[in-house]
């Protein structure tokens, strides 16, 4: 069922900008239109590009904020989230916790 909804209506997560738009809903309580416009402006892409996996794969590569395919020496977890927090101008809880732990 997850797959059905994901294909029918989902943005696509890390394949696109779905995780980034989700973060704006979660951190700022933005509705979908506002969240998409905010992320698009931060990524310097159009709103329609946000759900395009071809465009977003290049954008994510350039910004090093995580891509689906496993490649050497690219951001894969907490490192990607450090960059995402800075890119979107939001606080990410686990990033802040990580910073506290390595002080």
């Amino acid at each position, binding site marked *: *069922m*997850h*797959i*059905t*909804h*994901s*294909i*029918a*209506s*989902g*943005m*696509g*997560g*890390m*394949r696109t900008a*779905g*995780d980034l*738009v*989700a*973060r704006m*809903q*979660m*951190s700022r*309580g*933005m*509705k*979908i239109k506002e*969240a998409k416009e905010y992320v698009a402006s931060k990524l310097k892409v159009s*709103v*329609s590009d946000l*759900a395009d996996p071809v465009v977003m794969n290049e954008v994510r590569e350039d910004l090093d*904020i*995580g891509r*689906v395919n496993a490649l050497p020496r690219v*951001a*894969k*977890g*907490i490192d*990607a*989230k450090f960059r*995402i927090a800075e890119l979107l101008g939001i*606080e*990410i*809880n*686990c990033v802040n*916790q*990580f910073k506290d732990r390595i002080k």
Partner: protein
Amino acid sequence: MQKIYTRMGDGSVVELSESEVRQDLEEGTKDAAERAKIPSLSEDDLQRLLELYKCPDKSVGVEKGKEVILSYDSGTTKFNRVNVSVSKLQSLQIYERMLGADTMEMGHMDYSYKPAKNIMWIEQPVFEQALLVTIPPLFYGAMPNLGLYTQPDGPCLNPMELLPQGKISEARATQEEMIEHAVRDMVYVGSLMYESGADGINFDTTAAAGDADFLATLRAVEILKKKYPQMCIEMGMSGEFILGMHGELTYDGVKLAGLYPHKQVELAEKAGVTIFGPAVNTNTNESCAWNTARAVTFTKACVENSNIPIHANVGMGVGGVPVTETPPVDSVSRVSKAMVEIGRLDGL
């Protein structure tokens, strides 16, 4: 006249004429509108739904550009439930890399806050590890599940046994006691997981045990939000109608029993909920068209009355999805498209 291949609310196949589907759509939206005193779907909306059910394609999807965010209840338990032996961490990586998840959720196999509190000592390290190696936002979720606080599983007398005996005041008193235990557990688990780095906490199937269940969750949300103002809290409901198992409980002066989604969200917002998930139960005696029209009617009113994102529940048996262990793609994708495009959702 050509028949339309569709399904009933229990997933069984049925072939209906166009006029029968149209009638079901009208009756479904009318049922919701009359019950909740909200607008029924417009003629344009009904026509779009009719075209959706007339479409012979197995799977349908939203128009390009209308994609929304998906959040998942009890994400990591789903793999084990179908006997696929992967760890929680592996489940999350599958969601992240292979299922296109916009958000993810980890939860205890016994997906309620009461049992989850006993295993925080192992949940937290696994969760912290997951946060290091994944990228999408990660929730920790469970159900308030007030019923677990009744004997023999919990400390309180069972109101379901007291009510048939006519012991109304005793039944109310025990539910008030259950609320205290549940709030404590929800705040305990929510606090620990947020301190482990959670992006959000999810309360799934809120109000499953009625108005006491709803009140307990609202109170827990309020406490957590005061403790951690930045915490994202998702509240997913269990049904379109708050059952008055107690009958006299209020929150912020509003009686909880009898509330429909467009009123439930108002209280959720006041408590501090970030994302609200209305749930509309599927009627297995009616067609999917009837159920979808009804669910979209309730949901659309909820969206229009909300200042926070709305992620409608569209799992098995809710939101118009049939009540069957393996929900068919044709039904689920139609619910998905209808809810997003006509319901104007922010997510599912």
